[in-house]
């Protein structure tokens, strides 16, 4: 497939997506304010998917590893935070958790990445599967496996917007808005870190070409520790937001599995791709669940994201913003 066809398909995809999102209104099965609530709700959960996906993209770019353990890291971070908060004030607990994530990154680099350097990507992927199991078991062994409430003082009561414009207004959860703002801030900080600092530059160099970066004296191993630590930070933020929304529990790790179709949609190597992919998946699954679900027996949220990603893979395997590469022989 050449570039033009590929671009046209992408445009067609967005057009279809817009139609899909608008369709419930056009066919009269939804009122506008309700529909808008669904769309906003979808975009909000999309922000959270995007957050987990950013962790995946970070690690993939810097170490070529598709990190299946990102979900387990989210759970581990949230669990650590919530249990340490029982003993220490929030700010201190945050520091302790962050230290734990850095330690985890260091251990992963030492015990997994370094011995497996230059292995095929799929081997590394399977290794992160093992890491995921280990972190899950370890986290729950140390911190327990109940459901814990994470209260960091986010206001719970929903806000009603545009009351004057529509009858009844639009219901928006304040928690979601704060979460979105936090996610936005994190992304901005990461972008600044990558663009403006020396470490950020080194990270980008490593992402571009491992060997070239190494040959000019960038210490690969240290970069990996930093990247996995940053991914740990992203996991912590995702864990805080998810955790205060749903409670800290094992199922967090399954929600994080949703980040896989997100990166497939957005492309493995693209930060903006992770964000837009997250929004598309969040929006798509909410709208389809609310308006299509009833016809199919409900619960289609469980597979919608995956099937969307699967269909997408067939037409544009490199994702929306990913890099194409040519097999050379």
């Amino acid at each position: 497939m050449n570039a033009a066809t590929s671009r046209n398909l992408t445009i067609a995809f967005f057009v279809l997506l817009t139609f899909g999102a608008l369709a419930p209104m056009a066919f009269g099965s939804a009122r506008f304010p309700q529909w808008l609530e669904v769309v906003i709700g979808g975009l909000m959960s999309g922000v959270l998917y995007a957050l987990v996906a950013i962790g995946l993209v970070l690690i993939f770019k810097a170490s070529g590893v598709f990190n299946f353990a990102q979900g387990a890291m989210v759970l581990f971070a949230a669990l650590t935070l919530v249990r340490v908060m029982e003993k220490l004030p929030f700010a201190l607990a945050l520091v302790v958790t962050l230290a734990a994530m850095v330690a985890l990154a260091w251990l992963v680099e030492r015990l997994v990445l370094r011995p497996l350097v230059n292995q095929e990507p799929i081997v590394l992927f399977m290794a992160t599967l093992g890491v995921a199991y280990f972190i899950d078991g370890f986290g729950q062994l140390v911190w327990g496996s109940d459901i814990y409430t994470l209260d960091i003082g986010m206001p719970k009561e929903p806000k009603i917007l545009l009351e004057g414009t529509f009858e009844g207004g639009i219901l928006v959860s304040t928690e979601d808005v704060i979460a979105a703002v936090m996610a936005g801030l994190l992304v901005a900080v990461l972008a600044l870190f990558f663009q403006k600092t020396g470490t950020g530059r080194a990270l980008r160099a490593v992402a571009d070409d491992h060997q070239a970066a190494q040959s000019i004296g960038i210490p690969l191993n240290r970069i990996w520790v930093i990247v996995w630590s940053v991914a740990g930070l992203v996991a912590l933020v995702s864990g805080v937001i998810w955790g205060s929304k749903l409670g800290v529990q094992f199922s967090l790790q399954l929600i994080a599995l949703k980040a896989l179709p997100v990166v497939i949609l957005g492309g493995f190597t693209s930060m903006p791709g992770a964000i837009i992919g997250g929004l598309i998946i969040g929006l798509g699954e909410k709208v389809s669940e609310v308006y299509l679900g009833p016809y199919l027996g409900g619960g289609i949220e469980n597979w919608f994201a995956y099937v969307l990603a699967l269909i997408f893979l067939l037409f544009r395997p490199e994702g929306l913003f990913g890099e194409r590469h040519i097999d050379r022989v």
Partner: protein
Amino acid sequence: MIYREAGQFKTTYASDQQLFPILQDRVFVIGFLVFAFGVMPFIGTEYLFRAILVPFLILSLAALGLNILVGYCGQVSLGTGGFMAIGAYAAYNLAVRVPDLNLIVIFLLAGACSTVVGALFGIPSLRIKGFYLAVATLAAQFFIDWMFARIKWFTHDSPSGNVSAPPLQVFGFPIESPEAKYLFVLAFVCVFALVARNLARGAIGRAWMATRDMDVAAEVIGIRPMAAKLSAFAVSSFFVGVAGALWAFVYLGSWEPLAFDVNRSFQLLFMIIIGGLGSILGSFLGAAFIVVLPLVLNQVPGWLGVHMSTATVSHVEAMVFGALIVFFLIVEPRGLARLWAIGKEKLRLWPFPH
């Protein structure tokens, strides 16, 4: 001294290409089969059959199927649980809707259903590789989970989604006693292992391995990637589907979709990584390991005089599996089967150092 092939000269290519070219291997395998079929039923306890041997054999069959896809053809799948579910529910529907169908026919047809679905979900493999494909197969897993939980037709309108297998019998013999179940499953597994071995060392197995090792080169020498990959998906899903049907009918008896969720897929993948990718023997070793390890872990605290809750044991189990996966990928990517082969090499020279 015992395990030596000196003096066994192959005078024809046919004799060099037989199933087990070395005499001692042949004797060992035959002896093992005689023991498994002839002696085991008389000496085994009910616990041994029910809790260890039957699940071990069925999971070996599923692992064998997955190994064809992952180990031989290099296509990673995380949807194995889903394909097992297809086999289980297909068998259930056949048993319920088509009266008087022979049980063996039911299982084979269940495998055939799984083959069709597996080949369908294998289509993306023509365009994508590696973890992209792994994620695509997760789509199959989640979709299939949902299908059996929500579409009532498949569960014969059972209100809870829970279904039960009918009484099992083959040619008038009931398969109810632990011994009978064990022998029935054993027979299936032996036949399928032979088929897997034949396929793996024949033209089609070479096409799979060639696709795995270097797909562009395979295409250049005339192996069509589409045929190789889809046939691997099809054969693999057939094995997995039959295993799913056996798991549901013979081991579980009654089950719900949860029995075949994504954790089953991971468990099977772990089996072949630990047992040995691209090895028939490895599928068995891996399955044995993963079936036996939790039983051992459950016992260890007792031996040490410590009390551990079930939850704790399951967390420790997850940690041990996770650590072992990483360990094997680093130290011996070809798993227990490779260790076995190394042991045999050593034995060939024993007791001489070289």
